[in-house]
């Protein structure tokens, strides 16, 4: 089996498996974020649970970070290998005649998403880790004042139009990445994705609805506070 993951096809499968995991995570993430639009209290409760539950913090969180890092590193490694395989490039190449822009530029949409994740980590993850594990404040409150802090922190982050703009742009790249990536992951797993209309439609729906949802949440908090 270790030989399998060293082969070109094995690496495709590994990319697809990490993609499935990340797509599942995105679904969970948006569900939790959407709560913030409907109920401040529920959002605070769910965020506190996610932020303090040991299974999520020490079980799922490392797996997620591994999944993200693996997908990016593998993506870059494969891109470099593929560029080496090409050698001399064509003087004239009409790529648009036979493939979509999204499928040919996964590395660029991926790099844009990576840049966003760095910003996102600086915005939310690093302050969280600092508060909880370095300062040791697991209360979920601001200096012990009554009420949980998560909703307030979220709305505060979306005050800056620059940040909201960067988030919106990143989600456009996420949509472009998913428009090819969703069905591509199935194809790599051996599913004849090209023939399955249901899968293609599901892919299109997922790739548009999820990023649009994130854009909506960012804009909602920007214009409502």
């Amino acid at each position, binding site marked *: *089996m270790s*030989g*399998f993951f060293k*082969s*070109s*096809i*094995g*690496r*495709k*499968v590994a990319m697809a498996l990490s993609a499935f995991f990340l797509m599942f995570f995105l679904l969970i993430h948006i569900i939790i974020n959407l709560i913030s639009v409907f109920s401040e209290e529920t959002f605070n409760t769910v965020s506190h649970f996610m932020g303090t539950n040991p299974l999520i913090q020490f079980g799922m969180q490392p797996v997620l970070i591994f999944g993200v890092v693996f997908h990016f590193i593998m993506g870059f490694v*494969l891109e470099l*290998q*593929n560029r*080496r*395989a*090409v*050698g*001399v*490039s*064509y*003087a*004239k*190449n*009409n*790529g648009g*005649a*036979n*493939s*979509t822009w999204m*499928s*040919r530029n*996964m590395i660029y949409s991926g790099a844009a998403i990576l840049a966003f994740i760095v910003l996102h980590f600086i915005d939310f993850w690093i302050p969280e880790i600092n508060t909880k594990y370095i300062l040791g404040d697991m209360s979920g409150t601001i200096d012990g004042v009554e009420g949980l802090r998560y909703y307030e922190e979220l709305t505060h982050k979306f005050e800056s139009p620059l940040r909201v703009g960067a988030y919106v742009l990143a989600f456009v790249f996420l949509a472009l990445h998913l428009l*090819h990536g969703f*069905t*591509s992951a199935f*194809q*790599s*797993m*051996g*599913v*004849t*994705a*090209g*023939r399955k209309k249901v899968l293609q439609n599901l892919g299109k729906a997922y790739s548009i609805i999820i990023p649009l949802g994130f854009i909506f949440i960012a804009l909602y908090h920007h214009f409502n506070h």
Partner: protein
Amino acid sequence: MNLTLKIWKQKGPQDKGRMVDYKVNDISEHMSFLEMMDVLNEQLVNSGDEPVAFDHDCREGICGMCSLYINGQAHGPDRGITTCQLHMRMFKDGDTITIEPFRAKAFPVIKDLVVDRMSFERIQQAGGYISVNTSGNTQDANNILISKHAADEAMDAAACIGCGACVATCKNSSAMLFVGAKVSQYALLPQGQIEAVDRVQNMVVQMDLEGFGNCTNTGACEIECPKGISLDNIARMNRELMKASLK
């Protein structure tokens, strides 16, 4: 029609190569692309210049020998054809046509537009066959029942002529459509089952050794393939390799 041709010229494998401009006049729209190349070469020979080297053989879309990357597309601007089946009516008077060899590290240029596609042969040798006793005691092929669906799919996969357009058009120079077709044509038939595990593993190992890139499912190969080999064959190869790795 009168045309300007921008053609890749390269003296040999070690030469750096460059694009050279040529003019050809009075080309009939009924000519095939290779006939137009013949006219050019005749013109070059008559004027004492060196002709342009290009691959060709059957000139009826069967042998897989002709190649050429024409105006940014493998086998030129038409669907389901090889270069020898491309007609000059696809172009207009006064056009400039860019002609390059199929590009990939695993397809090194031998001279001008001729590339070495022996890497495909080596992949075939690694497992693209079935071992059959041909001593004269072979059983009647009709004794082995095969469903119509499997026979059709195997035949579709076997239509691959190994021209390399899939590699040439792939942004990663991946050979997975070719290898997928070769793996599939046997995997779909009972005669191919006996060596199925070794076949897919050995062919994929050889494909990787030859330096082809990874498939990123852009689907360009399927569209440019002169024989309409489907991406489903790549999916089947992936399944076959996963199955083989678990055995």
